[in-house]
């Protein structure tokens, strides 16, 4: 099994006629994702990769049964696109866009919670249930179907981790990029809860980084309620305070968000933390094999 997306997921791509939108639509199609429609306001009637382009998300839901969306529109319009999806009844919204203002996202996330929609991102590589569907921009071929859930705040770093897992013999049930921004739609805890209920997920890898306190909160949750084995990695042990390390959300500010504090919180709850990324595959082998 998997969480949130699977072979029944029908995707509408918002911003399908843009360069990124078109390229990744083609990539997703090659992976086997069911893309039922694209949306670019004003370009309704066109086709991209044989997929119909519509003017409104609501038409993709009503006419084509779309139940997930993947957003590639520029930052200034991404909040609007996200809200349109939620209002149209889409329940899993993946926002790839990087560079959305924080205050826009505070308002957007607040509205989405009311709609009961799940937002993955923004500033995310997306979500993939290997062998079933990928809604995002990750390289599909490094993944393999299996029992490990992966939750990450990063992009390329996640591909590296997944590659190590696959090479160590562990396929993945679902891999999620939470997004690299300070305000994102879902937390480690949301996905841990879903992975906890998924019988085929046997263990979880969480990949955190400096900034915020999401990893500390995850550590508390795991200690309290999560019964499957967890391996964690935190990027940024050598990051200086007060500097934004690429991701808008990767910043140590006001003494909060240090890698050391996160590692300590996880370890104090008995969670295995890999300090050297090169050893993640080996550690996963030890932790997951015995379970």
């Amino acid at each position, binding site marked *: 099994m998997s969480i949130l997306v699977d072979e029944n997921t029908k995707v509408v791509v918002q911003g399908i006629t843009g360069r990124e939108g078109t390229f990744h639509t083609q990539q997703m199609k090659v992976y086997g994702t069911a893309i039922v429609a694209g949306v670019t306001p004003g370009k309704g009637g066109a086709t991209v990769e044989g997929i119909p382009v519509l003017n409104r998300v609501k038409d993709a839901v009503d006419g084509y049964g779309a139940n997930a969306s993947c957003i590639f529109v520029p*930052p*200034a319009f991404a909040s609007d696109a996200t809200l349109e999806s939620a209002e149209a009844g889409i329940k899993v919204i993946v926002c790839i866009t990087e*560079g*959305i*203002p*924080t*205050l*826009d996202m*505070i*308002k957007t996330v*607040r509205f989405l919670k009311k709609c009961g929609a799940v937002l993955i991102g923004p500033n995310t*590589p997306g979500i993939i249930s290997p062998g079933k569907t990928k809604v995002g*921009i*990750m*390289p599909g071929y*490094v993944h393999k179907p299996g029992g490990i859930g992966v939750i*990450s*705040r*990063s*992009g*390329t*770093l996640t*591909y*590296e981790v997944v*590659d190590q897992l696959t090479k160590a013999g562990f396929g993945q049930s679902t891999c999620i990029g939470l997004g*690299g*921004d*300070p*305000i994102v739609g879902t937390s480690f805890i949301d996905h841990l809860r879903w992975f906890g209920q998924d019988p085929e997920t046997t263990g979880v890898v969480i*990949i955190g*980084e*400096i*900034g*915020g*306190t*999401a990893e500390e909160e995850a550590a508390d949750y795991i200690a309290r309620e999560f019964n499957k084995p967890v391996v964690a*990695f935190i*990027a*940024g*042990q*050598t*990051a*200086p*305070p*007060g*500097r934004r*390390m*690429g*991701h*808008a*959300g*990767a910043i140590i*500010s*006001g*003494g909060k968000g240090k890698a050391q504090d996160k590692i300590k919180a996880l370890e104090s709850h008995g969670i295995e933390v890999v*300090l*050297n*990324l*090169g*050893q993640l595959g080996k550690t996963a082998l030890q932790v997951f094999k015995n379970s």
Partner: protein
Amino acid sequence: MQKDFVSGLQPDAAKSVPGPPWVVKAQIHAGGRGKGGGVRLVKTVKELEDAARDILSHPLVTHQTGPSGQKVRQLLIEEGLAIDREFYLGIVVDRKLECPAMLFSQAGGMEIEEVSAQHPELVLIENIDITQGFMPYQARNFFYALDPLPDRGVLTELSAIMSKLYELFIAKDCSLVEINPLILTKSGMLVALDAKINFDDNALYRQSDIVQLHDANEMDELEARASEYKLNYIRLDGNVGAMVNGAGLAMAIMDVIKLAGAEPANFLDVGGGASEEMVTNGLKIILSDKRVKAILINIFGGIMRCDVLARGVVKAAKEVKIHVPLIVRLEGTNVNEGRAILKESDLDFSVAQDMEEAARMVAEQVR
């Protein structure tokens, strides 16, 4: 209150500001200036000149500038005021609760992180619903926790300052605004003695007036060049140059370098989907850092293909001579094509099989 900004040493600067006493403050884009010796109280013109000369003569080091400090180009000269009370007032984004939060404290003048670590009860917090804005009851929640309670007139003014500060936070897409200290003078006046504002980089496209305030002098020279190339580059204090695709992976590689016993000279993320040109520019920036003694390139080809990276490296090597050992680790999409391109070039480099080996190899070069 009267004050005057001056650049460099100007003997007459204080004439227009009432006093003595005066306060001389270094103007740099970093906090912790008082502790670093960048804020001085002076009682005579002679003292003022001495203080100004001293502050301007060397880089100011605070906990926010890094060990090499920041060059001081401008001073602020203020009237010295008789202080009755010092408050802290600030607004940040609470990432966990996903809302703006206003912080108020009667322990102003100190760093708020310290107050909140040692006396959390002295830092009052009101979370703000972004659809409602900052409400009067929230100001009252702050006021009635104060001991002693200030006069009604002061409270009315404080309340207005809070509302305006929140308006500013929203209107200008701030990620932090703080007034510290916000003082109450003995004559009953509220004065913002120092303030700091951070802006959300993601929102600068709609804040053109803020973009104009950008001062390249306050940036590291290489960082300024990198930002022109749209590269995520941060200069650090070590001697191992690193080029990586993806921010999370770049941080992880810095950590691996450190674990191998060396120190990274920089953070450089050429982007998950970097182009040949970005790779070339990135390598040029690393090579112009004189402290760099060895370079590690780690690319996990996903969206970015390894052959693109390899072509970028070869191109950069043609334009700038690579004068330090280069270690390359490639993995992912088109890895064999990438390795072949590097091999067929006349570049002198070593290939690492995995990132641990790469870090070990690069650490050996700088030992």
